[in-house]
């Protein structure tokens, strides 16, 4: 887009709006997120920015997103450049919402269609087109048409679909989903599902059965997902089962994002070795028991297992965690578990301790220890991580982040960094990271990226207005 036109629009949006007082029902908001990395090791700089502006007037809402990737991070798709990446117009009246332009959507539990953004792993599969939503106490319906964005920022073929859910009685929701697209040189593809959700005071059950009908030269796919959640007093039992057979709907982009049915971890070392979902060929279960003991303790026990359709165990995990708040000033979490995939077995011990000092200060320590055993050659080593953080006046957090390994194949054996987080008035948040960081996999929602090693300074700015 012409640069002058772009800045003209931004100028009009922000500097002229306050004058338009005759539109008394005009509302506006926006946010800007900026990441600037100076990688000293590779002598490179990365600059990325996402600026969003929203305008509301009566039943209408409009939005505009400007993105700059000059250049993007190495783990991002190749989207070098800048310009208006998204724009939409939305009309909302009673039970109806109609959207024209860019949007994200989700059908059911994502078995069939999920377009979403996760900026941390640079995932953005927004759809450019139109959609109509109808949300009534007895019925939810959605019709979509548009061109989804793939991982390299290009628009794919037109996608059409719909989602319908009836709520005939308060206990039961039943419905179905349907999606189709005409793939160049391959022909028309259909996929969809039927689903049911049962809700009782003592539990919840969800079932979704999906199919995929590719042109004859491609394998047909099927999938099902079952979930049961039972509550008794302070105890709950979650049981999930999935069977995905040729159900990774990927043609330039991944259209679906089915439930993972394994535990997602936030601890660095546990997260690094969790399973990467492969909906082409996997099945398995997850069982999680949670028990609130008194007012200040919660126990969580988890077991999950994934196999392929030949019965080969691809991943299994046992994990237990205890959250304990001995007083208003102390908060403790301790966890232990074992993760095993085809290559290695990892034994993990993690802990968090937080000491709240007065009303506005706190010290936090996160300790992680991981014992790795490579199954192929019995090689063993330790990885350890320690994070210390100090909250000051609920405005500033100072953190020290460190990691070490005894892995002899690793070129380095320790990594250390400092981080300052500052919250300023007017909704302004600044993070400055300085030091080095180990390379490794980071995962969110079963989608993972390999983040390269980094040494340098990273600045992140977020502001909302």
């Amino acid at each position, binding site marked *: 887009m012409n640069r002058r036109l772009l800045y003209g629009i931004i100028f009009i949006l922000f500097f002229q709006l306050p004058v338009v007082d005759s539109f008394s029902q005009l509302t506006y908001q926006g946010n800007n997120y*900026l990441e600037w990395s100076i990688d000293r090791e590779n002598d490179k700089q990365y600059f990325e920015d996402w600026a969003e502006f929203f305008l509301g007037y009566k039943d209408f809402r409009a939005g505009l997103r400007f993105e700059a990737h000059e250049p993007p991070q190495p783990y991002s798709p190749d989207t070098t450049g800048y310009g208006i990446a998204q724009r939409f117009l939305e009309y909302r009246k009673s039970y109806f919402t109609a959207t024209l332009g860019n949007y994200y959507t989700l059908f059911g539990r994502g078995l069939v269609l999920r377009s979403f953004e996760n900026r941390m792993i640079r995932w953005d599969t927004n759809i450019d087109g139109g959609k109509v939503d109808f949300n009534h106490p007895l019925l939810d319906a959605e019709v979509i048409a548009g061109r989804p964005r793939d991982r390299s920022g290009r628009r794919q073929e037109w996608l059409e679909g719909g989602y319908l859910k009836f709520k005939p009685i308060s206990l039961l929701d039943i419905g179905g989903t349907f999606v189709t697209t005409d793939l160049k040189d391959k022909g028309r593809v259909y996929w969809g599902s039927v689903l049911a959700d049962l809700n009782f005071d003592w539990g919840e059950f969800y079932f979704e059965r999906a199919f995929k009908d590719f042109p004859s030269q491609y394998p047909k796919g099927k999938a099902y997902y079952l979930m049961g959640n039972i509550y008794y007093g302070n105890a709950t039992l979650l049981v999930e089962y999935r069977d995905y057979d040729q159900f990774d709907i990927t043609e330039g982009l991944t259209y679906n994002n089915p439930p993972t049915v394994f535990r997602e971890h936030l601890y660095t070392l546990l997260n690094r070795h969790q399973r990467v979902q492969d909906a082409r060929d996997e099945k398995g279960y997850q069982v999680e028991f949670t028990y609130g003991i008194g007012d200040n303790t919660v126990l969580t026990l988890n077991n999950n297992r994934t196999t392929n359709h030949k019965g080969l165990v691809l991943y299994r995990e046992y994990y237990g965690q205890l959250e304990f708040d001995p007083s208003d000033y102390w908060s403790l979490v301790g966890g232990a578990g074992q993760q095993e995939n085809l290559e290695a077995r990892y034994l993990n011990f993690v802990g968090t301790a937080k000491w709240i000092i007065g009303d506005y200060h706190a010290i936090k320590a996160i300790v992680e220890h991981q014992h790795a055993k490579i199954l192929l050659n019995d090689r063993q080593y330790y990885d350890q991580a320690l994070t210390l953080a100090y909250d000051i006046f609920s405005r500033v957090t100072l953190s020290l982040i460190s990691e070490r390994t005894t892995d002899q194949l690793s070129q380095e054996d320790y990594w250390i960094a400092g981080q300052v987080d500052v919250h300023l008035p007017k909704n302004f948040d600044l993070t400055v990271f300085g030091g080095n960081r180990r390379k490794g996999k980071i995962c969110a929602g079963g989608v993972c990226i390999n983040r390269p090693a980094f040494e340098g300074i990273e600045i992140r700015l977020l502001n909302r207005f």
Partner: protein
Amino acid sequence: MKYFLSMMLILCFFLPALAGDEGSDREKAPDFTLPDLDGKNYVLYQNLEKGPVVINFWATWCVPCIEELKKMKKIYDTYSEKEVSFLAISVDDPKTVGRVKSFAKSHRYPFHILLDTNSEVMRMLGGSVPPFTIILDKEGRIVYSHVGYRVGDEKKVEEELDKLLK
């Protein structure tokens, strides 16, 4: 790149100053509809007249969210009697949404819990990651917000609620 950097820094630093204070008519939250844990739809604008609304976006996998919700429980005990509504909106995605209900039960969350499975409402209200907390007055204006959680944020929430209830 320097050109972009300087442009964006200017936008970051000066736009907030140009924008109205929180609580101005310009800051009215857009309406939204979300399902609760029993599958019933909650419509924001149909519930505003009851009084101020505290909205906290959280997720079962988010450690600071859980820390903040512990504090929110105490605020709830004090203010729910004073016609303040509390919405704890889970942004757990389809991967983890199955555990929201059991998590809320075992942690004894008293709030009205809604599901924003694709994070669309959080984005619409200006949030990008949980925890994200906003307070709306009876007219639906955003009078306060914060991203993340630091010890003491709950005091600011209490101060804002006290101002609204005067």
